[in-house]
């Protein structure tokens, strides 16, 4: 039963700030949110069911379509899980590892840029959108030069990479990383000390580290709450142990801290890219694939493997029956799905317009939430 002042309002699914088709049923008292109930599933395509019907290499393009603004990391998570299942993780050539790292760090930058652009525009700051897309365009051009696609990259294979780097690609990356640091400064000059920005983000959606872990939150939202945990450091994969980078953490666990964490992560990704370029140049050209059988038929067993995607812990849980060339069961642990679950806890007591900021700060992609 409602109090006389309470009412129920549908937020979405066709609301521009829901970043896709998320519907939130709000119980509000005036402008204040009493309860929020996210309704998801509008973009459910049964990806996990499809995985059971196709061979492992055929699954890779489908992983692109889950988190469609960060497809390289989706590919990476999937191929690494299959490699772990087959026991060939150690056989991946150095050049392929570095290429994977470079593509996923570029992807992290482009995903964070899209996040910043839309997050800012949701809150009302129009200008950063144009600056962010300027740089994101350059990253997408680099992707296009490597694999022909800009969004759905399909750029990794089980056991290595599909193609060697095109001539001049590293120079293009070098050009980008040299300028990108200044570009981040430029975004920060627009927002970090902006009084309106701070009014809209400081103290909004505070989540304590204990709660964050209890809700299973990962990625920048977890680090924004002050937990120094990054899978690239905690459970390193590929050649991350050899690369230097820092894990930025926040103090208060509010929207502003999560913003700062992501801004710093872009700088760190840029630093990783800078370190990668000379390392790639040292590796022999063309050495991009482990010598494994073309038929992917892993032994019987089950593995869970996860990587640090731009949005958090992206995990794949694959069960192989040892007889077929397709997974008996492939479950995806999408970071957005789990992070979104904490939205009601974060939104309680805030204003409706803060909900827009909160959806932005979780950085959800509904393709991944619904799979």
């Amino acid at each position: 039963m409602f109090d006389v002042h309470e009412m129920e309002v549908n937020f979405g699914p066709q609301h521009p700030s829901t970043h896709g088709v998320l519907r939130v049923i709000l119980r509000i008292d005036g402008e204040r949110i009493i309860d929020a109930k996210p309704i998801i599933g509008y973009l459910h395509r049964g990806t996990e069911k499809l995985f059971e019907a196709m061979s492992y290499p055929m699954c890779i393009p489908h992983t692109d379509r889950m988190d469609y603004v960060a497809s390289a990391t989706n590919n990476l998570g999937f191929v690494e899980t299959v490699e772990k299942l087959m026991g060939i993780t150690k056989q991946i050539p150095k050049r392929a590892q570095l290429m994977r790292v470079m593509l996923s760090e570029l992807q992290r930058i482009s995903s964070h840029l899209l996040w910043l652009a839309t997050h800012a525009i949701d809150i009302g700051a129009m200008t950063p959108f144009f600056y962010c897309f300027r740089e994101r365009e350059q990253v997408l051009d680099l992707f296009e030069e490597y694999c022909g696609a800009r969004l759905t990259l399909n750029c990794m294979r089980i056991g290595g990479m599909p193609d060697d780097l095109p001539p001049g690609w590293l120079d293009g990356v070098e050009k980008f990383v040299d300028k990108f640091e200044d570009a981040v400064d430029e975004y920060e000059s627009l927002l970090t000390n902006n009084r309106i920005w701070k009014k809209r983000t400081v103290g909004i959606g505070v989540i304590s580290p204990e709660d964050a872990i209890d809700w299973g939150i990962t990625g920048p939202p977890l680090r924004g709450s002050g937990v120094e945990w990054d899978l690239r450091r905690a459970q390193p994969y590929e050649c991350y142990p050899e690369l230097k980078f820092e894990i930025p953490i926040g103090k208060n666990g509010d929207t502003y801290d999560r913003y700062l964490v992501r801004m710093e992560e872009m700088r760190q990704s840029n630093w990783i890219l800078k370190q990668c370029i000379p390392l790639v140049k040292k590796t022999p050209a063309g050495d991009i694939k482990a010598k494994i059988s073309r038929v992917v038929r892993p032994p019987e067993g089950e593995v869970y493997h996860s990587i640090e995607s731009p949005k958090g812990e992206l995990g794949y849980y694959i069960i192989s029956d040892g007889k077929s060339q397709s997974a008996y069961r492939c479950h995806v642990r999408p970071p957005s799905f789990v992070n979104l679950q904490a939205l009601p806890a974060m939104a309680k007591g805030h204003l409706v317009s803060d909900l827009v900021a909160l959806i932005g700060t979780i950085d959800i992609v509904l393709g991944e939430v619904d799979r």
Partner: protein
Amino acid sequence: MTDAPQPPQQSKPAVPAAPAAPAARSVEEIKRDPLVAQACARSGDAIIGAKEFAGEISLTVARDRIADVARAFRDDGFNYLVDLSGVDYSKYPAWTGERFGVSYTLYSFTKNNRVRLKVTTDESTPIPSVTSVWKTANWHERETFDMFGIVFDGHPNLERILMWEGFNGHPLRKDFPIRGIDTGARIYPEVFPEGGGPKAGSTGKDVKDVNIYKGEWKHYGTWPVAEIQQRAAIGGQPPAPELAGVVAETAKPTEEAPWHDPEKALPERMELAKAGSLKDKLFAAMAQTDCTACGWDCEGYAEALAKGETKDITLCVPGEDETESMLKQLMAGAGKA
């Protein structure tokens, strides 16, 4: 528990051999692993099995005790539930256990390692919910319920999450067709009552009353509602437009119906049926394919028209305008139009 990690299968001799797998540990040895020893000791006999693969420990837990075991592990540092998902083992080669499995992947920040708990269940037995142990289990359990129909006992709000309320079936069960099903329930509620629609694994043919469509399952959007209702009212078979023009094996001339031959042209057929009854003339006007696109074979449609069960003369798709105009003429001649 002899399932040791196997090296990957290799078809070419030139491939370098994978590193030799270490000797498999026994269940008791795994339970004494420093990662899980303390929690295992506290859980006692609730842990009924253990396996190791690719450096990951999986512990099989007695179904009724999972919540207690989960709490023991949480108190031992595994305060982050990474993932919870179900498996349908019904098509697993040589599987003898219960149909469903549920896996809980836990992570400990202090130990920086994961462990997996597993329980099994059948179609009807609920599993104790772990939502009171980790808040994050809420949506994971809802998803597992939605996708597999596994019920979690004690869950505060166990409802569908990815599929809509009222969806009939659990998509990740192995007997659910991969191309999906169309319940139609929400598209034509006046024809398909709420909660109707096919069950998981059905091709739609088993659904009585609400749908007596005998052809291949297809989208209701291509069926005119009025037609479905009319068909259902007269007890005939709903039209199967995709069969139109397919010549059935029964489409052969017989002694009683020498015109029943799709090779013959319409005037020739009418000539043969000249002396027959109205039904025979109507029968001869049909395309003679017995394709059942109209819902009957050719004779059945002629009979339905002759008896006045249907007045629709437009249903013979392969006969095209020719048949339609002839039917119109015959019906008008018999005073039934």
